[in-house]
């Protein structure tokens, strides 16, 4: 079919191959300005070059640290079963370890301490190694800091970790089936019914399965927000000022930026037994500002004033409505 008269050039495959090679090459650490010039020249040679490159580059960019795939609970025949043959082979060993673990829990962690906060309280726990954990409202964790390891189990709620890095004694946080290992870090973790959110503000940390299998670890960098559910993890990046707003609780405040009243109420309700209830379409109204986390009543008054709403306080709950 290679008729000389055809209008359509029969080289798409070849061009795509070259474009793909450029993408593989550009990924190199030693990619230089001169390399870029060469690439630009190739792209400028023909519009079809640019188009082929754009197309592949779009696919390339979609893979960028988007998701870590984790063993699905359904699992059979999934990506992981094949990607992790070593894990399957060691299934017997895992079963053995689990049996040991059940009985050994108590005496293996003789120095384990539990810390729990109630609604509206925060607690700062300083460890002997210089690390510090700030436990937010309505949260619970266990800490075990022995000579060999530093372990925290975040069982409920939210905590902010400032870790003194020590490569010889890794600092691990186990939360909802995930494991975060400090690589010199400040990070916060908030765990809820369905998902766990890890926010990294400084340094770096590794996120992994609780079983410590490192085959699919992701390394978190400052600004990364990882949202982990039972079978998936996605990472997004947020500007630092947004992160600081989210960590307002460390300063005892809640920071809202175009936040719906419903979300704001939910956040206040984490901090107080006196519940804030937003009724009807008032829930969709949005509010900005910084508010003391422990003063739900003040927020209700201010929000009511700004948004022209009624706030009714009966002592146990505050109802906001139009």
């Amino acid at each position, binding site marked *: *079919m290679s*008729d000389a*008269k*055809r*209008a*359509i*050039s*029969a*080289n*798409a*495959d070849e061009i*795509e*191959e070259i474009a*793909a*090679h450029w*993408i*593989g090459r*550009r*990924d*190199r*650490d030693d990619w230089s*300005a001169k390399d*870029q010039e060469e*690439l*630009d*020249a190739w*792209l*400028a*040679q*023909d*519009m*079809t*070059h*640019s*188009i*082929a*490159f*754009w*197309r*592949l580059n*779009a*696919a*390339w*960019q*979609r*893979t*960028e*640290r*988007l*998701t*870590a*795939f984790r063993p699905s609970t359904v699992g059979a025949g*999934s*990506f992981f079963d*094949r*990607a992790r043959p070593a894990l399957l082979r060691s299934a017997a060993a895992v079963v053995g370890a689990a049996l040991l673990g059940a009985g050994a829990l108590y005496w293996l962690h003789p120095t384990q301490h539990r810390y729990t906060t109630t609604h509206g309280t925060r607690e700062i726990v300083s460890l002997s190694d210089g690390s510090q954990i700030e436990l937010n409202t309505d949260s619970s964790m266990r800490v075990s800091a022995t000579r060999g390891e530093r372990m925290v189990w975040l069982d409920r709620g939210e905590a902010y970790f400032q870790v003194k890095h020590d490569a010889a004694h890794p600092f691990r946080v186990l939360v909802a089936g995930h494991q975060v290992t400090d690589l010199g870090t400040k990070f916060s973790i908030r765990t809820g019914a369905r998902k766990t959110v890890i926010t990294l503000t400084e340094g770096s940390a590794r996120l992994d399965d609780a079983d410590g299998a490192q085959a*699919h670890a*992701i*390394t978190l960098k400052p600004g990364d927000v990882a949202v982990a559910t039972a079978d*998936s993890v996605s990472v997004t990046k947020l500007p630092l000022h947004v992160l600081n707003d989210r960590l307002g609780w460390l300063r005892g405040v809640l920071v809202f930026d175009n936040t719906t009243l419903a979300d704001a109420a939910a956040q206040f309700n984490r901090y107080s037994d006196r519940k804030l209830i937003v009724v009807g379409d008032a829930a969709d109204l949005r509010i900005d500002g910084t508010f003391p986390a422990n003063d739900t009543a003040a927020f209700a008054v201010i929000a009511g004033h700004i948004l022209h709403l009624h706030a009714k306080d009966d002592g146990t709950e505050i109802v906001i409505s139009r």
Partner: protein
Amino acid sequence: MRDTPETNPEATGPAPGGGVAVPGLEAWFVEEVLPLEAALMHFLRRSGQHAHEIADLRQEVYLRVCEAAKTKIPHPVRPFLFTVARNVLIDQMRRNRVIPIDAVAELEALDIATDVPGPDRSAMARSDLRRLRAALDELPPRCREVLILRRIEGLSRREIASRLGITDKTVTQYLASGVRTLANLLYAGSEAGRRRG
């Protein structure tokens, strides 16, 4: 002049010469045209052309669409894309001089359903991860491994090379062939013509 091609999606279009002079053309192509590729491939495959010519036909369609977009971005893009595709097929048949009887007429009558709206953007975003996962799953094992280690786990190329016992050049090759297959799976639909969603 542009030193961060990976973070700036528009940085790969060179300004002068025979290439691209329109800023934003790449972003437009990626956001508006590429999502229609599966439908375009379905149309081209159905046209009775030889399988090995489909990639060339697609290239021609994209070329004409982008050349047109240089002067004016066509809107809406879907009917425009399919009109171009039909013209490309007609030209192809005429040049080949092996026009099957009634093929052109059939083509004219071909229902390309240009008024059917494409998938809505939020639905695409929702299924994006699932598609990516399914596509990664279909890569040859070594390609998949290299691509995942590099792009998702962020290992350095040196780490990958030493872990898998391959050279950096081989890493480049795996990444290149991996990204080609991935693009076909993500945009063209699987090469076997199966539909995924």
